[in-house]
């Protein structure tokens, strides 16, 4: 199933956030949106997930406009994890994950064998089975995020959208969550689209990087191909030095501003 945005325009009140933006999400790959605060990356993701309606343009699922599809049908193909979701007090991990089956349930079919298998598999995949009976609000940040991801997995959609899934997490938990998504992509072939703030983690985990600037897509492609000094300067309004990540060989952006005088060979080269 392919996800495509066509000529999207969206404004909050009078301020235009997206202007005539088109993008095609590569199937079976990890796509990451990056950009400065307020560049519209979350708005784009939320529009793709039909949480907000564009003024103009359309989001297409396998060529069909989502505004013409039933919302439950969309939910079977596309799941979304919003930014900073909150669970009601006392809701256990298992109860949360079970909610993921909502689009597959009906008045008469409330708990099918498939529902049960999908919930078990989702908890297994996100490694939350061992604390299935723990209330979500008692978990650590990383575990909590994994529980929410398990809920979206139970939905059984092959495309997963995540709005800043690593925000508010410490470094170890960020890696933990991104590894889980990477694994899903590798093993299940899930298409993953997410917004990330950390450009270095974005470069490491993305197959397809989308840099947004000026209400539209500034550059997109493999991180190795598009991450340049100039791109970072245009998108983040920031000077940087780009090195190869010594472990993964993906681009590593080292920003610099006014703090602490640069030294060494690179500083000398940059100064010229």
């Amino acid at each position, binding site marked *: 199933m392919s996800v495509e945005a066509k000529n999207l325009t969206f404004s909050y009140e009078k301020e235009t956030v997206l202007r005539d933006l088109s993008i095609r999400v590569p199937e079976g790959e990890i796509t990451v949106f990056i950009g400065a605060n307020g560049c519209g990356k979350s708005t784009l993701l*939320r529009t793709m*997930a*039909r*949480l907000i309606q564009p003024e103009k343009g359309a989001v297409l699922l396998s060529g069909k406009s989502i505004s013409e599809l*039933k*919302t*439950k*049908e*969309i*939910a*079977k193909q596309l*799941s*979304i*994890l*919003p930014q900073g*979701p*909150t*669970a*009601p*007090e*006392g*809701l256990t991990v298992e*109860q*949360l994950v079970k*909610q*993921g089956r*909502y*689009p597959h*349930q009906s*008045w*008469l*079919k*409330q*708990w*099918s*064998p498939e*529902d*049960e298998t999908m919930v078990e598999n989702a908890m297994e995949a996100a490694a939350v089975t061992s604390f299935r009976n723990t209330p979500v609000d008692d978990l650590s940040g990383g575990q909590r995020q994994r529980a929410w991801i398990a809920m*979206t997995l139970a*939905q059984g959609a092959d495309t997963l959208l995540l709005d800043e899934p690593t925000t508010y997490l410490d470094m170890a938990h960020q890696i933990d969550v991104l590894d889980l998504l990477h694994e899903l992509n590798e093993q299940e072939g899930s298409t993953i689209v997410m917004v990330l703030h950390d450009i270095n983690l974005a470069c490491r985990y993305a197959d397809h990087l989308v840099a947004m600037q000026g209400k539209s897509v500034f550059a997109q492609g493999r991180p190795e191909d598009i991450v340049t000094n100039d791109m970072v300067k245009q998108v983040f309004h920031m000077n940087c030095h780009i090195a190869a990540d010594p472990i993964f060989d993906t681009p590593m952006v080292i920003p610099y501003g006014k703090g602490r005088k640069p030294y060494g060979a690179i500083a000398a080269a940059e100064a010229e």
Partner: protein
Amino acid sequence: MKRHTTWRTRFFSVQMDMRAIRRMGLLVLAVLAACLLGPSLGNTMLSPVTVVETMMGSGSGANEFIVNNSRVPRTLVALLTGGALGVSGLLLQGVVRNPLAAPDIVGVTGGASVAAVAFMTFGAGAVSIQWIPLAAISGALLVSTLIYALAWKKGVSPIRLILIGIGISAIMSAAVTFMIIVSSAVTATDAYVWLTGSIYGASWSDIFTIAPVIALGLPLAVVFSSSLNAQQLGDDTSAGLGVRIQVDRIVVVFLSVVLAGTAVAVAGAIGFIGLIAPHIARALIGRSYGALVPASACTGAILLFAADLIARTIFYPVDVPAGVFTAAIGAPFFLYLLFRNRNHF
């Protein structure tokens, strides 16, 4: 121990919490017990056997009047009204995701009070007081529609609904106070009794008003329970799961308004049942709305029945409005909830 039991046939599947089912059974038994107890207790104590005999038409003439014309309708009205208020409160708390919400915040009580008191003040003598319930429910519907419309901004968000509801309710209570001040002392007393909420003088026609609303409203509430379950995860997450948030929200709020509006039309502005009943139900049954709907109905029914029973027996021959007792339990309970939720607001 396995807590859940699953039933499946080819076309049907459901998972039930066994403990919840057992407790639900006890609640239903309690309601049935109230049906017998209500007509038995009072100034003239009757045995349940006598009550059943009288209801079957083989009792003495004096008992027949007490049981069939007074105590049975009163018991049934208390149970049905309490049930309607309980479910109404549950639905509203579910929609706004706030445990402190009650039907009052969407203007049911405010609208009904203004309409009823205006009716007593300006329509007294000119129009039959039998029309008060109709005036009350019209007022309730009108004001809640107004609140919902004012809260609308590309859809209704719970917090906007609450804030606008509080504002409009304040205006409504000012209007009620104004009308009471300008009206005669007799009318003012009537108005106060109505505003407190009383089941005194309940009749069979009251039952025929509220019974159909319950009969239709409860199953409809159960239909929307899975949507309410999902809505507890927040607007974005539930929309992502395929909940038609704005459509479901407007239907559930409307259902809540009709249930509470009918209850208020029949029994006056009885407070706090809609707030407390869902909490007791949650403590007993858990968090699944499918089970909470019948449980809140039973809990609300028992609460109002108990309040009315105390109101009409303990201070006999004075018939204290049942609303006094629901408020006496409800107000401290509200403070307790505020205290318990202090870290969440």
